[in-house]
Protein backbone atom coordinates (compact mmCIF):
# COMPACT_ATOMS: atom_id res chain seq x y z
CA UNK A 1 0.00 0.00 0.00
CA UNK A 2 1.37 3.34 -0.95
CA UNK A 3 1.85 6.14 1.52
CA UNK A 4 -0.93 8.20 0.00
CA UNK A 5 -3.39 5.33 0.17
CA UNK A 6 -2.46 4.76 3.79
CA UNK A 7 -2.98 8.42 4.61
CA UNK A 8 -6.34 8.41 2.90
CA UNK A 9 -7.34 5.25 4.75
CA UNK A 10 -6.26 6.80 8.05
CA UNK A 11 -8.15 10.01 7.30
CA UNK A 12 -11.22 8.03 6.34
CA UNK A 13 -11.16 5.92 9.48
CA UNK A 14 -10.67 9.04 11.59
CA UNK A 15 -13.62 10.70 9.86
CA UNK A 16 -15.76 7.63 10.43
CA UNK A 17 -14.77 7.61 14.08
CA UNK A 18 -15.72 11.27 14.39
CA UNK A 19 -19.02 10.67 12.58
CA UNK A 20 -19.83 7.69 14.78
CA UNK A 21 -18.94 9.65 17.90
CA UNK A 22 -21.24 12.45 16.81
CA UNK A 23 -24.11 10.07 16.20
CA UNK A 24 -23.74 7.97 19.34
CA UNK A 25 -26.01 9.12 22.15
CA UNK A 26 -24.60 9.73 25.64
CA UNK A 27 -23.57 6.71 27.70
CA UNK A 28 -26.32 4.57 29.10
CA UNK A 29 -28.83 5.61 26.45
CA UNK A 30 -29.57 3.18 23.66
CA UNK A 31 -30.61 4.86 20.43
CA UNK A 32 -33.22 2.70 18.74
CA UNK A 33 -35.55 2.81 15.76
CA UNK A 34 -39.09 1.53 15.32
CA UNK A 35 -37.95 -1.86 14.02
CA UNK A 36 -36.38 -2.50 17.41
CA UNK A 37 -39.81 -2.34 19.02
CA UNK A 38 -40.96 -5.36 17.04
CA UNK A 39 -40.13 -8.83 18.34
CA UNK A 40 -37.25 -10.37 16.34
CA UNK A 41 -39.56 -12.90 14.65
CA UNK A 42 -41.76 -10.17 13.18
CA UNK A 43 -39.08 -7.96 11.73
CA UNK A 44 -38.79 -9.80 8.42
CA UNK A 45 -42.48 -10.00 7.72
CA UNK A 46 -42.92 -6.71 5.94
CA UNK A 47 -46.02 -6.58 3.78
CA UNK A 48 -45.70 -3.90 1.08
CA UNK A 49 -49.41 -3.66 0.28
CA UNK A 50 -51.30 -1.19 2.42
CA UNK A 51 -53.35 -2.86 5.12
CA UNK A 52 -57.08 -2.93 4.44
CA UNK A 53 -59.37 -0.83 6.58
CA UNK A 54 -60.50 -2.40 9.81
CA UNK A 55 -64.19 -2.56 9.14
CA UNK A 56 -65.22 -5.30 11.44
CA UNK A 57 -63.83 -3.78 14.61
CA UNK A 58 -67.30 -2.49 15.37
CA UNK A 59 -68.95 -5.74 14.31
CA UNK A 60 -70.62 -4.65 11.12
CA UNK A 61 -70.28 -8.14 9.79
CA UNK A 62 -68.52 -7.11 6.61
CA UNK A 63 -64.82 -7.85 6.32
CA UNK A 64 -62.87 -9.79 8.82
CA UNK A 65 -60.63 -7.75 11.06
CA UNK A 66 -57.44 -7.45 9.08
CA UNK A 67 -55.36 -4.99 10.99
CA UNK A 68 -51.71 -5.64 10.37
CA UNK A 69 -49.11 -5.84 13.03
CA UNK A 70 -49.46 -7.29 16.47
CA UNK A 71 -49.51 -6.48 20.11
CA UNK A 72 -46.33 -8.40 20.79
CA UNK A 73 -43.63 -6.12 22.07
CA UNK A 74 -39.91 -6.78 22.25
CA UNK A 75 -39.27 -7.83 25.87
CA UNK A 76 -35.52 -7.09 25.64
CA UNK A 77 -36.25 -3.38 25.80
CA UNK A 78 -37.90 -3.48 29.21
CA UNK A 79 -36.25 -1.02 31.58
CA UNK A 80 -33.76 0.24 28.98
CA UNK A 81 -33.07 3.94 28.68
CA UNK A 82 -33.71 4.62 25.00
CA UNK A 83 -33.65 7.49 22.56
CA UNK A 84 -36.26 7.16 19.82
CA UNK A 85 -37.31 9.55 17.05
CA UNK A 86 -40.98 9.92 16.27
CA UNK A 87 -44.01 12.13 15.93
CA UNK A 88 -45.97 13.40 18.86
CA UNK A 89 -49.72 12.93 19.15
CA UNK A 90 -50.61 15.17 22.08
CA UNK A 91 -52.91 13.84 24.77
CA UNK A 92 -52.58 16.11 27.77
CA UNK A 93 -51.09 19.53 28.26
CA UNK A 94 -50.47 20.75 31.75
CA UNK A 95 -49.86 24.17 33.22
CA UNK A 96 -48.33 26.75 30.89
CA UNK A 97 -49.35 24.60 27.94
CA UNK A 98 -46.42 22.21 28.37
CA UNK A 99 -47.04 18.73 27.07
CA UNK A 100 -47.28 15.99 29.71
CA UNK A 101 -48.66 12.92 27.97
CA UNK A 102 -48.53 11.88 24.35
CA UNK A 103 -48.32 9.00 21.92
CA UNK A 104 -45.05 8.70 20.05
CA UNK A 105 -45.67 7.17 16.63
CA UNK A 106 -43.39 6.29 13.71
CA UNK A 107 -45.05 8.56 11.18
CA UNK A 108 -47.09 11.69 11.29
CA UNK A 109 -50.71 11.40 10.34
CA UNK A 110 -50.91 8.23 12.33
CA UNK A 111 -54.04 9.90 13.49
CA UNK A 112 -55.81 10.60 10.21
CA UNK A 113 -54.42 9.87 6.79
CA UNK A 114 -53.17 6.33 6.88
CA UNK A 115 -54.11 3.20 8.82
CA UNK A 116 -53.23 3.40 12.47
CA UNK A 117 -49.96 1.92 13.66
CA UNK A 118 -50.33 -1.43 15.41
CA UNK A 119 -50.10 -1.38 19.21
CA UNK A 120 -46.45 -2.43 19.24
CA UNK A 121 -45.59 0.61 17.13
CA UNK A 122 -47.11 3.11 19.55
CA UNK A 123 -45.29 4.37 22.62
CA UNK A 124 -47.34 5.98 25.32
CA UNK A 125 -45.11 8.65 26.85
CA UNK A 126 -45.54 10.34 30.20
CA UNK A 127 -43.03 13.14 30.64
CA UNK A 128 -41.47 13.56 34.08
CA UNK A 129 -41.65 17.31 33.56
CA UNK A 130 -43.74 18.99 30.89
CA UNK A 131 -41.95 19.58 27.60
CA UNK A 132 -42.38 22.40 25.13
CA UNK A 133 -43.77 21.43 21.73
CA UNK A 134 -44.46 24.14 19.21
CA UNK A 135 -45.74 22.10 16.30
CA UNK A 136 -47.19 18.61 16.20
CA UNK A 137 -45.96 18.31 12.63
CA UNK A 138 -42.27 18.19 13.53
CA UNK A 139 -40.46 15.01 14.50
CA UNK A 140 -38.89 14.81 17.96
CA UNK A 141 -36.23 12.79 19.72
CA UNK A 142 -37.59 11.40 22.95
CA UNK A 143 -35.31 9.98 25.62
CA UNK A 144 -36.49 8.01 28.60
CA UNK A 145 -36.91 4.64 30.25
CA UNK A 146 -38.99 2.21 28.25
CA UNK A 147 -41.37 -0.15 30.03
CA UNK A 148 -42.78 -3.15 28.26
CA UNK A 149 -46.06 -4.63 29.36
CA UNK A 150 -45.35 -8.30 28.68
CA UNK A 151 -48.89 -9.47 29.30
CA UNK A 152 -50.62 -7.68 26.44
CA UNK A 153 -53.13 -10.22 25.23
CA UNK A 154 -55.81 -8.82 27.51
CA UNK A 155 -55.21 -5.27 26.38
CA UNK A 156 -54.70 -4.41 29.99
CA UNK A 157 -52.01 -1.85 29.34
CA UNK A 158 -50.30 -0.09 26.51
CA UNK A 159 -47.60 -2.34 25.04
CA UNK A 160 -44.94 0.31 25.50
CA UNK A 161 -44.88 3.10 27.99
CA UNK A 162 -42.00 5.50 28.28
CA UNK A 163 -41.02 7.57 31.27
CA UNK A 164 -40.02 10.61 29.28
CA UNK A 165 -36.94 12.46 30.46
CA UNK A 166 -36.15 14.67 27.50
CA UNK A 167 -37.73 15.77 24.26
CA UNK A 168 -35.77 17.64 21.60
CA UNK A 169 -36.47 18.51 17.97
CA UNK A 170 -35.31 15.92 15.46
CA UNK A 171 -32.33 17.01 13.36
CA UNK A 172 -31.28 15.49 10.11
CA UNK A 173 -28.17 13.38 10.52
CA UNK A 174 -26.26 15.57 8.06
CA UNK A 175 -26.64 18.70 10.16
Amino acid sequence: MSMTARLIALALSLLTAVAVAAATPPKGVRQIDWQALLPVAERGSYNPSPPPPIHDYLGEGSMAALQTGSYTPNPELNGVRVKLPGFVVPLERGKNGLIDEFFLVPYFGACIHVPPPPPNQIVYVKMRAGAGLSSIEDAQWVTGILHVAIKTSELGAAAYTLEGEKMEPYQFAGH
Partner: protein
Amino acid sequence: MPILHLSLRSLWNRRMTASITIAAIAVSVALLLGVQMLRAAAKEGFTQTVSGADLLVGARTGPLNLLLYSIFRIGDATANVSWASYRKIATHPDVAWTIPISLGDTHRGFRVLGTNNDYFAHYHFAGTQSLTFTAGGPMRDIYDAVLGADVARSLHYRLGDNITLLHGLGAVSFAEHKDKPFRVVGILGKTGTPVDRTVHVSLEGISAMHIDWQSGVQAPPALRVKADEARKRDLTPDSITAFLVGMRSKVMTFTMQRAINEYRQEPLLAVLPGVARDQMWSLVGIADTALTVVAAFVVLAGLLGMLTSILTSLNERRREMAILRSVGAMPRHVFTLMLIEAGTLAISGVFAGVFLTYILLVVGRSVLADRFGIYVPIALPTLQEVEILTAIVLAALGIGLLPAAQAYRRTLSDGLQIRV
Protein backbone atom coordinates in the same frame (compact mmCIF):
# COMPACT_ATOMS: atom_id res chain seq x y z
CA MET B 1 -27.28 60.47 45.19
CA PRO B 2 -27.51 64.25 44.81
CA ILE B 3 -27.93 63.65 41.07
CA LEU B 4 -30.88 61.35 41.69
CA HIS B 5 -32.41 63.91 44.02
CA LEU B 6 -31.81 66.68 41.52
CA SER B 7 -33.27 64.64 38.72
CA LEU B 8 -36.42 63.85 40.64
CA ARG B 9 -36.83 67.48 41.71
CA SER B 10 -36.38 68.60 38.13
CA LEU B 11 -39.03 66.13 37.00
CA TRP B 12 -41.34 67.31 39.76
CA ASN B 13 -40.95 70.79 38.43
CA ARG B 14 -42.31 69.56 35.12
CA ARG B 15 -44.85 67.26 36.73
CA MET B 16 -47.62 67.98 34.23
CA THR B 17 -45.71 66.77 31.15
CA ALA B 18 -44.02 64.06 33.20
CA SER B 19 -47.28 62.61 34.44
CA ILE B 20 -48.76 62.60 30.94
CA THR B 21 -45.68 60.76 29.68
CA ILE B 22 -46.00 58.28 32.53
CA ALA B 23 -49.69 57.84 31.75
CA ALA B 24 -48.90 57.13 28.09
CA ILE B 25 -46.36 54.48 29.07
CA ALA B 26 -48.74 53.08 31.68
CA VAL B 27 -51.56 52.67 29.18
CA SER B 28 -49.29 50.93 26.69
CA VAL B 29 -47.84 48.66 29.38
CA ALA B 30 -51.34 47.82 30.60
CA LEU B 31 -52.33 46.91 27.06
CA LEU B 32 -49.33 44.67 26.54
CA LEU B 33 -49.69 43.03 29.94
CA GLY B 34 -53.42 42.64 29.48
CA VAL B 35 -52.94 40.92 26.13
CA GLN B 36 -50.32 38.64 27.68
CA MET B 37 -52.57 37.71 30.59
CA LEU B 38 -55.57 37.18 28.35
CA ARG B 39 -53.73 34.92 25.97
CA ALA B 40 -52.23 32.92 28.83
CA ALA B 41 -55.67 32.54 30.39
CA ALA B 42 -57.27 31.64 27.08
CA LYS B 43 -54.58 29.07 26.38
CA GLU B 44 -54.90 27.63 29.85
CA GLY B 45 -58.65 27.43 29.38
CA PHE B 46 -58.17 25.71 26.04
CA THR B 47 -55.73 23.14 27.27
CA GLN B 48 -57.40 22.45 30.59
CA THR B 49 -61.00 22.12 29.48
CA VAL B 50 -61.12 18.43 28.82
CA SER B 51 -58.67 15.75 29.79
CA GLY B 52 -58.58 12.02 30.30
CA ALA B 53 -60.93 11.28 27.41
CA ASP B 54 -59.33 9.30 24.59
CA LEU B 55 -61.79 10.11 21.84
CA LEU B 56 -64.49 12.65 21.08
CA VAL B 57 -67.13 11.33 18.70
CA GLY B 58 -69.82 13.22 16.81
CA ALA B 59 -71.52 13.43 13.45
CA ARG B 60 -69.12 13.78 10.54
CA THR B 61 -67.84 17.34 10.41
CA GLY B 62 -64.40 18.88 10.97
CA PRO B 63 -62.33 18.05 14.07
CA LEU B 64 -62.25 21.69 15.17
CA ASN B 65 -65.95 22.11 14.62
CA LEU B 66 -66.74 19.03 16.68
CA LEU B 67 -64.51 20.18 19.52
CA LEU B 68 -65.96 23.70 19.44
CA TYR B 69 -69.62 22.77 19.60
CA SER B 70 -69.45 19.76 21.86
CA ILE B 71 -66.85 20.85 24.41
CA PHE B 72 -66.62 24.62 24.18
CA ARG B 73 -70.32 25.06 23.36
CA ILE B 74 -69.46 27.49 20.58
CA GLY B 75 -71.65 27.21 17.49
CA ASP B 76 -73.93 24.27 16.98
CA ALA B 77 -73.96 20.77 15.63
CA THR B 78 -74.66 19.96 12.00
CA ALA B 79 -76.12 16.56 12.75
CA ASN B 80 -76.57 14.13 15.61
CA VAL B 81 -75.27 10.66 16.37
CA SER B 82 -77.91 7.96 16.38
CA TRP B 83 -78.56 6.24 19.68
CA ALA B 84 -77.90 2.85 18.07
CA SER B 85 -74.39 3.85 16.94
CA TYR B 86 -73.68 5.36 20.34
CA ARG B 87 -74.71 2.18 22.13
CA LYS B 88 -72.72 0.03 19.75
CA ILE B 89 -69.52 1.92 20.53
CA ALA B 90 -70.31 2.37 24.22
CA THR B 91 -70.75 -1.38 24.69
CA HIS B 92 -67.61 -2.36 22.75
CA PRO B 93 -65.33 -4.51 24.94
CA ASP B 94 -62.36 -2.15 24.50
CA VAL B 95 -64.36 0.84 25.73
CA ALA B 96 -64.11 1.61 29.45
CA TRP B 97 -66.60 4.45 29.69
CA THR B 98 -68.50 7.01 27.63
CA ILE B 99 -70.08 10.34 28.40
CA PRO B 100 -73.06 11.21 26.17
CA ILE B 101 -73.57 14.88 25.34
CA SER B 102 -76.90 16.20 24.08
CA LEU B 103 -77.13 19.91 23.34
CA GLY B 104 -79.71 22.27 21.87
CA ASP B 105 -81.57 23.94 24.73
CA THR B 106 -80.74 26.80 27.03
CA HIS B 107 -81.64 28.28 30.34
CA ARG B 108 -81.38 32.09 30.41
CA GLY B 109 -78.37 32.11 28.13
CA PHE B 110 -76.67 29.09 29.67
CA ARG B 111 -76.48 25.96 27.57
CA VAL B 112 -78.33 22.87 28.68
CA LEU B 113 -76.43 19.61 28.38
CA GLY B 114 -78.23 16.29 28.47
CA THR B 115 -76.06 13.48 29.81
CA ASN B 116 -76.05 10.76 32.42
CA ASN B 117 -74.29 10.44 35.75
CA ASP B 118 -71.17 9.02 34.08
CA TYR B 119 -70.47 12.65 33.29
CA PHE B 120 -69.83 13.42 36.96
CA ALA B 121 -67.73 10.29 37.38
CA HIS B 122 -65.54 10.48 34.29
CA TYR B 123 -65.34 14.09 33.14
CA HIS B 124 -61.89 15.42 33.96
CA PHE B 125 -60.31 18.81 33.47
CA ALA B 126 -56.93 20.40 34.15
CA GLY B 127 -55.05 17.11 34.19
CA THR B 128 -56.65 14.76 36.67
CA GLN B 129 -59.17 16.95 38.45
CA SER B 130 -62.70 15.61 38.48
CA LEU B 131 -65.97 17.44 39.03
CA THR B 132 -67.00 18.15 42.60
CA PHE B 133 -70.33 19.15 44.12
CA THR B 134 -70.49 22.19 46.39
CA ALA B 135 -74.11 21.31 47.16
CA GLY B 136 -76.38 18.37 46.50
CA GLY B 137 -75.37 15.54 44.20
CA PRO B 138 -75.95 13.92 40.81
CA MET B 139 -79.32 13.51 39.10
CA ARG B 140 -81.72 10.87 40.37
CA ASP B 141 -84.91 11.80 38.57
CA ILE B 142 -85.82 12.62 34.95
CA TYR B 143 -86.55 16.22 35.91
CA ASP B 144 -83.41 16.82 37.98
CA ALA B 145 -80.81 19.41 37.02
CA VAL B 146 -77.21 19.96 38.12
CA LEU B 147 -75.90 23.49 37.70
CA GLY B 148 -72.41 24.68 36.87
CA ALA B 149 -70.87 27.08 39.42
CA ASP B 150 -71.40 30.24 37.33
CA VAL B 151 -75.01 29.40 36.52
CA ALA B 152 -75.87 29.03 40.20
CA ARG B 153 -73.91 32.14 41.16
CA SER B 154 -75.21 34.54 38.54
CA LEU B 155 -78.84 33.40 38.70
CA HIS B 156 -78.82 32.96 42.51
CA TYR B 157 -80.17 29.42 42.40
CA ARG B 158 -80.23 27.08 45.34
CA LEU B 159 -81.06 23.41 45.76
CA GLY B 160 -84.73 22.69 45.25
CA ASP B 161 -85.40 25.66 42.95
CA ASN B 162 -87.48 24.99 39.86
CA ILE B 163 -86.14 26.14 36.50
CA THR B 164 -87.69 26.30 33.05
CA LEU B 165 -85.55 25.45 30.03
CA LEU B 166 -85.75 27.18 26.68
CA HIS B 167 -85.85 25.54 23.29
CA GLY B 168 -82.98 26.79 21.12
CA LEU B 169 -79.90 28.78 21.96
CA GLY B 170 -81.11 32.36 22.54
CA ALA B 171 -81.09 33.87 26.02
CA VAL B 172 -84.68 35.04 25.52
CA SER B 173 -87.28 33.05 23.62
CA PHE B 174 -90.99 32.35 23.64
CA ALA B 175 -90.31 28.67 22.88
CA GLU B 176 -90.24 27.54 26.47
CA HIS B 177 -90.48 24.11 28.02
CA LYS B 178 -92.71 25.63 30.68
CA ASP B 179 -94.84 22.57 31.23
CA LYS B 180 -91.87 20.48 32.36
CA PRO B 181 -89.89 22.35 35.00
CA PHE B 182 -86.62 20.93 36.33
CA ARG B 183 -85.55 20.87 39.95
CA VAL B 184 -82.03 21.86 41.00
CA VAL B 185 -80.48 18.89 42.82
CA GLY B 186 -76.79 19.68 42.60
CA ILE B 187 -74.38 22.56 42.18
CA LEU B 188 -70.88 21.91 40.88
CA GLY B 189 -67.65 23.45 42.13
CA LYS B 190 -65.83 26.01 40.04
CA THR B 191 -63.71 24.49 37.27
CA GLY B 192 -62.72 27.44 35.08
CA THR B 193 -64.10 25.56 32.06
CA PRO B 194 -67.37 25.72 30.07
CA VAL B 195 -68.82 23.27 32.63
CA ASP B 196 -69.30 26.26 34.96
CA ARG B 197 -71.73 27.76 32.48
CA THR B 198 -73.76 24.64 31.81
CA VAL B 199 -77.05 23.30 33.10
CA HIS B 200 -76.85 19.49 33.22
CA VAL B 201 -79.96 17.38 32.90
CA SER B 202 -80.59 13.72 32.13
CA LEU B 203 -80.91 12.46 28.56
CA GLU B 204 -84.39 11.23 29.50
CA GLY B 205 -85.23 14.75 30.67
CA ILE B 206 -84.25 16.09 27.24
CA SER B 207 -86.47 13.45 25.60
CA ALA B 208 -89.36 14.25 27.93
CA MET B 209 -89.12 17.97 27.17
CA HIS B 210 -89.36 17.34 23.46
CA ILE B 211 -91.83 14.48 23.50
CA ASP B 212 -94.72 16.58 22.20
CA TRP B 213 -92.65 18.80 19.94
CA GLN B 214 -93.09 18.41 16.22
CA SER B 215 -91.54 20.39 13.38
CA GLY B 216 -89.92 22.87 15.73
CA VAL B 217 -93.04 23.82 17.68
CA GLN B 218 -94.89 22.27 20.56
CA ALA B 219 -98.16 20.44 19.92
CA PRO B 220 -101.41 22.37 20.57
CA PRO B 221 -102.37 22.41 24.26
CA ALA B 222 -104.93 19.62 23.95
CA LEU B 223 -102.38 17.20 22.58
CA ARG B 224 -99.57 18.02 24.99
CA VAL B 225 -98.04 15.37 27.17
CA LYS B 226 -97.96 16.29 30.86
CA ALA B 227 -94.74 15.99 32.80
CA ASP B 228 -95.94 12.96 34.75
CA GLU B 229 -97.41 11.25 31.70
CA ALA B 230 -94.09 11.62 29.96
CA ARG B 231 -92.49 9.49 32.66
CA LYS B 232 -94.50 6.51 31.48
CA ARG B 233 -93.34 6.84 27.89
CA ASP B 234 -90.18 5.35 26.45
CA LEU B 235 -87.70 8.15 26.97
CA THR B 236 -84.70 6.49 25.31
CA PRO B 237 -83.28 9.24 23.13
CA ASP B 238 -83.20 8.81 19.34
CA SER B 239 -79.91 10.57 19.07
CA ILE B 240 -77.28 12.54 20.96
CA THR B 241 -75.00 15.37 19.84
CA ALA B 242 -71.65 13.82 20.66
CA PHE B 243 -69.90 11.63 23.21
CA LEU B 244 -66.57 11.22 24.92
CA VAL B 245 -64.89 7.84 25.03
CA GLY B 246 -62.40 6.42 27.50
CA MET B 247 -60.59 3.32 26.22
CA ARG B 248 -59.55 0.40 28.41
CA SER B 249 -56.18 0.42 26.72
CA LYS B 250 -54.81 3.63 25.31
CA VAL B 251 -53.03 1.83 22.46
CA MET B 252 -56.42 0.90 21.00
CA THR B 253 -57.33 4.57 20.61
CA PHE B 254 -56.13 4.77 17.01
CA THR B 255 -57.81 1.52 16.05
CA MET B 256 -61.12 2.64 17.52
CA GLN B 257 -60.78 6.06 15.94
CA ARG B 258 -60.21 4.53 12.54
CA ALA B 259 -63.07 2.09 12.98
CA ILE B 260 -65.46 4.91 13.89
CA ASN B 261 -64.30 7.10 11.02
CA GLU B 262 -64.86 4.25 8.59
CA TYR B 263 -68.08 3.04 10.17
CA ARG B 264 -70.44 2.14 7.37
CA GLN B 265 -73.78 2.41 9.17
CA GLU B 266 -73.47 6.10 9.90
CA PRO B 267 -71.05 8.91 8.99
CA LEU B 268 -69.28 9.60 12.25
CA LEU B 269 -66.15 11.44 13.25
CA ALA B 270 -63.81 10.49 16.07
CA VAL B 271 -60.99 12.82 17.07
CA LEU B 272 -58.35 12.75 19.76
CA PRO B 273 -59.30 15.77 21.87
CA GLY B 274 -55.63 16.65 22.40
CA VAL B 275 -54.89 16.78 18.68
CA ALA B 276 -57.98 18.83 17.82
CA ARG B 277 -57.16 21.19 20.67
CA ASP B 278 -53.61 21.71 19.42
CA GLN B 279 -54.86 22.29 15.88
CA MET B 280 -57.35 24.81 17.18
CA TRP B 281 -54.71 26.55 19.23
CA SER B 282 -52.37 26.89 16.25
CA LEU B 283 -55.26 28.57 14.42
CA VAL B 284 -56.11 30.90 17.29
CA GLY B 285 -52.40 31.47 17.74
CA ILE B 286 -52.26 33.62 14.61
CA ALA B 287 -54.70 36.18 15.97
CA ASP B 288 -52.95 35.91 19.29
CA THR B 289 -49.55 36.72 17.78
CA ALA B 290 -51.05 39.62 15.83
CA LEU B 291 -52.48 41.05 19.03
CA THR B 292 -49.14 40.78 20.82
CA VAL B 293 -47.35 42.51 17.94
CA VAL B 294 -49.88 45.36 18.03
CA ALA B 295 -49.45 45.67 21.80
CA ALA B 296 -45.66 45.73 21.40
CA PHE B 297 -45.97 48.56 18.89
CA VAL B 298 -48.18 50.50 21.27
CA VAL B 299 -45.45 50.19 23.91
CA LEU B 300 -42.94 51.43 21.34
CA ALA B 301 -45.22 54.39 20.61
CA GLY B 302 -45.41 55.09 24.33
CA LEU B 303 -41.61 55.09 24.63
CA LEU B 304 -41.25 57.31 21.56
CA GLY B 305 -43.70 59.70 23.22
CA MET B 306 -41.35 59.77 26.20
CA LEU B 307 -38.42 60.49 23.89
CA THR B 308 -40.30 63.38 22.28
CA SER B 309 -41.19 64.92 25.61
CA ILE B 310 -37.62 64.69 26.92
CA LEU B 311 -36.11 66.03 23.69
CA THR B 312 -38.50 69.00 23.54
CA SER B 313 -37.81 69.77 27.17
CA LEU B 314 -34.09 69.97 26.46
CA ASN B 315 -34.47 73.32 24.73
CA GLU B 316 -36.45 74.80 27.59
CA ARG B 317 -33.90 73.52 30.03
CA ARG B 318 -30.76 75.09 28.61
CA ARG B 319 -30.75 77.53 31.54
CA GLU B 320 -31.12 74.71 34.00
CA MET B 321 -28.19 72.88 32.47
CA ALA B 322 -26.12 76.07 32.39
CA ILE B 323 -26.75 76.70 36.07
CA LEU B 324 -25.84 73.13 36.90
CA ARG B 325 -22.64 73.52 34.93
CA SER B 326 -21.83 76.82 36.62
CA VAL B 327 -22.13 75.25 40.07
CA GLY B 328 -19.67 72.56 39.04
CA ALA B 329 -21.63 69.80 37.38
CA MET B 330 -19.53 67.88 34.88
CA PRO B 331 -21.00 66.97 31.46
CA ARG B 332 -21.16 63.35 32.65
CA HIS B 333 -23.35 64.47 35.54
CA VAL B 334 -25.73 66.04 33.06
CA PHE B 335 -25.66 62.82 31.06
CA THR B 336 -26.54 60.77 34.15
CA LEU B 337 -29.25 63.26 35.06
CA MET B 338 -30.97 62.77 31.73
CA LEU B 339 -30.67 59.01 31.91
CA ILE B 340 -32.14 58.95 35.41
CA GLU B 341 -35.00 61.01 34.11
CA ALA B 342 -35.78 58.51 31.34
CA GLY B 343 -35.46 55.63 33.79
CA THR B 344 -37.73 57.28 36.34
CA LEU B 345 -40.39 57.94 33.72
CA ALA B 346 -40.21 54.39 32.41
CA ILE B 347 -40.22 52.70 35.82
CA SER B 348 -43.10 54.84 37.07
CA GLY B 349 -44.92 54.14 33.81
CA VAL B 350 -44.39 50.40 34.15
CA PHE B 351 -45.56 50.35 37.75
CA ALA B 352 -48.58 52.49 36.93
CA GLY B 353 -49.27 50.16 33.99
CA VAL B 354 -49.15 47.05 36.17
CA PHE B 355 -51.42 48.77 38.68
CA LEU B 356 -53.82 49.73 35.90
CA THR B 357 -53.85 46.17 34.56
CA TYR B 358 -54.83 44.75 37.93
CA ILE B 359 -57.55 47.36 38.39
CA LEU B 360 -58.97 46.50 34.95
CA LEU B 361 -58.68 42.82 35.77
CA VAL B 362 -60.58 43.13 39.04
CA VAL B 363 -63.29 45.14 37.34
CA GLY B 364 -63.49 43.19 34.11
CA ARG B 365 -62.87 39.61 35.05
CA SER B 366 -66.45 38.61 35.75
CA VAL B 367 -67.51 40.10 32.40
CA LEU B 368 -64.72 38.17 30.67
CA ALA B 369 -65.81 34.96 32.35
CA ASP B 370 -69.53 35.45 31.71
CA ARG B 371 -69.36 36.72 28.17
CA PHE B 372 -66.35 34.95 26.74
CA GLY B 373 -65.68 32.09 29.12
CA ILE B 374 -62.11 33.25 29.70
CA TYR B 375 -61.05 32.95 33.31
CA VAL B 376 -58.17 35.29 34.10
CA PRO B 377 -56.65 34.50 37.48
CA ILE B 378 -55.52 37.41 39.64
CA ALA B 379 -51.97 36.36 40.30
CA LEU B 380 -48.56 37.95 40.55
CA PRO B 381 -46.96 38.63 37.17
CA THR B 382 -45.28 35.56 35.76
CA LEU B 383 -41.55 35.40 35.13
CA GLN B 384 -42.18 36.04 31.45
CA GLU B 385 -44.22 39.13 32.23
CA VAL B 386 -41.51 40.43 34.57
CA GLU B 387 -39.01 39.89 31.76
CA ILE B 388 -41.17 41.90 29.38
CA LEU B 389 -41.49 44.72 31.91
CA THR B 390 -37.74 44.75 32.49
CA ALA B 391 -37.20 44.84 28.74
CA ILE B 392 -39.47 47.90 28.52
CA VAL B 393 -37.43 49.71 31.18
CA LEU B 394 -34.18 48.77 29.43
CA ALA B 395 -35.59 49.93 26.11
CA ALA B 396 -36.55 53.23 27.74
CA LEU B 397 -32.99 53.65 29.06
CA GLY B 398 -31.70 52.85 25.58
CA ILE B 399 -33.94 55.48 24.06
CA GLY B 400 -32.96 57.84 26.90
CA LEU B 401 -29.35 57.70 25.70
CA LEU B 402 -30.27 59.95 22.79
CA PRO B 403 -31.37 63.04 24.76
CA ALA B 404 -28.68 62.29 27.33
CA ALA B 405 -26.00 62.36 24.63
CA GLN B 406 -27.45 65.52 23.16
CA ALA B 407 -27.51 67.23 26.55
CA TYR B 408 -23.94 66.04 27.15
CA ARG B 409 -22.75 67.57 23.91
CA ARG B 410 -24.57 70.81 24.33
CA THR B 411 -23.65 71.47 27.94
CA LEU B 412 -20.00 71.76 26.99
CA SER B 413 -20.57 75.20 25.52
CA ASP B 414 -24.24 75.92 25.37
CA GLY B 415 -26.39 78.05 27.57
CA LEU B 416 -23.77 80.14 29.28
CA GLN B 417 -23.69 82.76 26.60
CA ILE B 418 -26.88 84.56 25.79
CA ARG B 419 -27.99 84.11 22.21
CA VAL B 420 -30.36 86.42 20.48
